[in-house]
């Protein structure tokens, strides 16, 4: 008799299950790969390419044709004029050729040496073109009666032009100028400092305010639900709406906040909240705290409501005062969720773009790394430099995620 042994390896049923699982996950994986992983790889590629915004439109040949001279009576001499130019000022286009059909009733008298005529179809091989090169190609013709009768002009049949241009995104020119430019000078350190200030104080502020709000609402009373809903308003409303509301509230000329401060005698002159260093940076951080304290509040409240109340009763019996209970009982219980929130919010605040972009556009000393990506890529039109900043961001995030997995994954079962 043989002993019963548990089966080893994966059986056919387990394989079937795994196959089903992967096929259910396949759409998600594909979508995420296309929209997240591919762009991430592309960022690395672009960051070592000398690409500017204008390079996104590849150079092409521009051709206009018309007919010059008298074309009123048969036998008139005229010229078909082709005006050609390279749309790019810098980049060459190779092997330029064009094809056109000469309208009926026009007899070609003389041909440019680079062109051939086969019946009505004209074909020209114009060779390689430098950046910004332009040329006028004239083909003398004699007008026949058929042309006048038909009324078809040469430009009515569009010419077909081809040429090969190399695209800077796909060729093999590489450069480290982008990185050199990003790390160049004091600007980078200022951006880094601003990012750190914004991230650290934004995160801690949102956590502390969230904790305070959660302590307020961690008891049942009439209207608790309303207040809880109200305190979530900043988080659920569109960022663009609240950002503009803040801009208008703190407007230096006609903002209510300034009018209020002047009236209360806090200040004599109106303050340009979003336009002065270092006030602008403080203001965007305050905005961040204002907008995201609801999130911390919600999480902390949920955790608080799951704490056993027996503990507090026992502490009360033992004579612990409210503050002692808070420090010795609540804080240790909340430490887990607080550290999770801190790390998550830290990373998301680091990644935040919209808020600062809308409030100050990165001016007045509020340019964080993410705003710098936009600034480099679109304001200075240097996409390569923008991508280089993005690579720097990505490196920082890798660093954070190491921390994240080391410390967080044990907490709260994330």
């Amino acid at each position, binding site marked *: 008799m043989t002993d019963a042994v548990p089966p080893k390896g994966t059986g056919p049923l387990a394989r079937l299950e795994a196959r089903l699982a992967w096929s259910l996950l396949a759409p998600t994986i594909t979508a*995420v790969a296309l929209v997240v992983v591919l762009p991430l790889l592309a960022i690395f590629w672009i960051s070592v390419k000398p690409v500017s915004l204008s390079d996104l439109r590849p150079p092409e040949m521009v051709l206009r044709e018309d007919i010059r001279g008298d074309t009123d009576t048969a036998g008139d001499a005229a010229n078909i004029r082709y005006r050609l130019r390279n749309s790019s000022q810098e980049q060459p286009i190779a092997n330029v050729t064009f094809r056109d059909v000469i309208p009926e009733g026009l007899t070609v008298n003389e041909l440019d040496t680079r062109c051939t005529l086969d019946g009505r179809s004209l074909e020209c091989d114009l060779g390689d073109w430098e950046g910004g090169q332009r040329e006028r190609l004239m083909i003398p013709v004699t007008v026949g009666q058929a042309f006048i009768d038909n009324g078809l002009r040469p430009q009515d049949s569009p010419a077909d032009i081809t040429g090969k241009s190399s695209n800077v995104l796909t060729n093999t020119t590489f450069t480290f100028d982008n990185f050199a430019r990003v790390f160049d000078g004091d600007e980078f350190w200022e951006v880094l400092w601003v990012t750190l200030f914004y991230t650290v104080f934004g995160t801690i502020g949102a956590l502390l305010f969230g904790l305070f709000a959660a302590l307020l609402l961690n008891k049942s009373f009439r209207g608790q639900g309303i207040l809880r809903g109200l305190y979530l308003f900043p988080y659920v409303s569109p960022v663009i709406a609240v950002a503009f509301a803040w801009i208008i509230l703190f407007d230096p000329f006609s903002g209510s906040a300034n009018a209020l401060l002047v009236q209360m005698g806090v200040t004599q002159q109106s303050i340009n909240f979003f336009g002065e260093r270092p006030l602008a940076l403080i203001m965007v951080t305050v905005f961040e705290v204002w907008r995201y304290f609801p999130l911390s509040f919600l999480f902390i409240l949920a955790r608080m409501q799951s704490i056993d109340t027996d503990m507090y009763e026992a502490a009360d019996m033992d004579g612990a005062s409210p503050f002692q209970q808070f420090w010795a009982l609540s804080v240790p219980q909340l430490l887990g969720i607080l550290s999770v929130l801190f790390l998550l919010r830290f990373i998301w605040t680091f990644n935040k773009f919209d808020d600062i972009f809308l409030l100050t556009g990165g001016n007045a000393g509020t340019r964080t790394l993410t705003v710098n990506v936009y600034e480099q890529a679109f304001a200075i039109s240097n996409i390569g430099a923008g991508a280089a900043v993005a690579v720097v961001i990505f490196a920082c995030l890798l660093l954070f995620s190491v921390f994240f997995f080391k410390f967080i994954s044990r907490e709260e079962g994330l």
Partner: protein
Amino acid sequence: MNALRHGYITAPVLGVLWLFVIATTVAVAMSFATGSAFRPSGTGSIFWGVLAGFACIRGKVWQPVAAAAVITVATLFGFGPIVIGVSVSSFSAFVGAAATAGFCALGLWMMLDDVVPGAINRHVFEASVIRFLTGFGYIFFTAIVLIPFYVMVLTSLKNQSELIQNPLDFSIEFSRGAELFRSYVELFSQFNFGTYLLNSFVISVLTVFITLLFAIPGAYAVARLRFRGRAAFSRSILLIYMVPMIVLALPIYIAFSMTGLRNSMIGIVMIYPVTTIPVALYMLQGYFRGLPGEVEEAGLMDGLNRLQVIWKITLPLSLPAMASVSLYVFMIAWNEFLLAFMLLDDPSKFTLTRGIASLNSSEIPRQHLMAGSVIATVPIMAIFLGLERFMTKGLTAGSVKG
């Protein structure tokens, strides 16, 4: 700290602090409501706060009432905790003075409930401090949350010259009637906001559907099926949260420019769901795990295949989670700004957020900008308030994307 724990010290200190909080609140509220001059006075607050503190120590009820009356009268004569400008109408002056004194006395009476004249123990002291902090907290949070929204709504109902004349005057002239809503009418008639609203709605709803279509099978696989790499997979979903949108937006902008997908709704509908699928998947798999597996096994035994089990058993059981996820995804898509801003140039395809961004120019009056903001905020608020239970659950369950 021990010195503080004495009725004759705790009461006046809390009295001063509380009166100053109340005076500031009333001054701000009255200024915003009437546009006239109210301001808190530091010395007034200290003097009357000490008095009110003593009056509200445990004792007879007439003491705080009398203190409130005295403070009201003093304020009307110009010596109170708030200073009222000369041009203020006597009615609003009275309301301001009475509110300051009343709320001050009421709050202190509640705070100093157990505080007796003489030494007090730590419990009583801390309880009164906590009551003070609670009162302050309610006022503070309600004020900071409400003021920007208040300014948003009321600015949208005013006109440019009124705003510049007195930025504090938010009083509404109801005599203007329908004229009040002129900015809204203009946005819908001249600025195409009807189209934007429709675009935003269509895009958000499509995003919800596509997200669910992708996330439900994925979440089910992660929650229920055993396969190698499951743990790694469910963790790496979270990693996708951590990629900043602006980093992705740059290559997407380039790719869309080159393929002609920029400036098209299809492009937006292709991108939005991918940003929400990971969140939805993570939320749903958490919920699926909590469902009893026996029901599904019973279904399998009765001859359903896996897909039928999902459709006929799992989905009906998880309708509340679906509602939370859908609302949350809808909110993300509705509020999305960056991608819409970068990818859409053609006004006929704008979403609401992109439409509002286009109003931000010096030629367009500010009340239009605020009216646009209100139009974008109201639907999401309505949904939020109507379905707050689901929404809050969705926000908490998803460990939430910022």
